[in-house]
């Protein structure tokens, strides 16, 4: 199942200089190597990837919710994968879900009033909302390969 995800790396390459590609590849290899250790949470990360594949299997066809939901598309799965991969090693791993508009959701949940939900869209937009006690936070960030600081901060605050 992971192989299916890896194939997108080939499809997505293109643009940028050879040097930029080399640096990007090496950075990702280093991050994968680090994540491959037990210390930095290999098990949790790969569990999240398995959930991502499972969501694609369950929600990949139109109407998967019985109410005309949009299908979760390959491009959305790839966006979510890149987003998950961008988290610093050791960061808490979210649970994975899907919304009727075909976005994939990643949720960091501590309690009903301490939770962050991020919707990953196929166009690499990250729509987030968070409840932190009585405070509400929501907005949209573009994903450019790094997890936006505002989202990292919300997750830290939910976990603290």
């Amino acid at each position, binding site marked *: 199942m992971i192989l299916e995800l890896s194939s997108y790396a080939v499809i997505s390459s293109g643009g940028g200089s050879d040097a930029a590609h080399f640096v990007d590849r090496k950075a990702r290899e280093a991050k994968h190597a680090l994540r491959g250790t037990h210390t930095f949470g290999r098990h949790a990360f790969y569990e999240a990837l398995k959930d991502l594949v499972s*969501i694609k299997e*369950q*929600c990949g066809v139109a*109407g*998967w*919710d*019985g*109410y*005309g*939901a*949009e299908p979760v598309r390959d491009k959305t799965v790839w966006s979510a994968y890149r987003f998950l991969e961008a988290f610093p090693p050791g960061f808490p791993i979210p*649970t*994975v*879900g*899907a*919304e*009727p*508009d075909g*976005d994939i*959701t990643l*949720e960091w*949940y501590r309690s*009903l*009033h301490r*939770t962050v*939900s991020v*919707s990953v*869209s196929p166009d690499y937009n990250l*729509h*987030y*909302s*968070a*409840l932190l006690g009585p405070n*509400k*936070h*929501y*907005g*949209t960030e573009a994903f450019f390969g790094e997890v936006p600081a505002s989202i990292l901060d919300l997750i830290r605050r939910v976990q603290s």
Partner: protein
Amino acid sequence: MFQNWIRSDGTVRPDAFIPPKDLQLSTTRHIRLSESAIWEVGGVVAAIRSVRLLGRADVAVQNVISIGLSAQAAPLPENPNHAHVIGWPANKPSQKILAQQLAVMAAYHPKP
């Protein structure tokens, strides 16, 4: 209810309350329905839509209204108590925060 919308602690993820494109979230009102009749309606709807009925998430109308949304009757032949939750904003982050608040107020009941 889609299985991934139910957390392991029995609470409901906000994903369940994100409205479809037409911004009309389908629900069933409980007016004058017994507990068994509610499940019967759910069973009929699930059969028509070829999905498995896992459970239901109950939210009181006053809770819907308290966050600026409203409920509008939209009876269907197979479900006279069908209603829409309407008044959703068009932008996704605003929908998400409302869905998150509905999820806090929802009570999940697994199918007996």
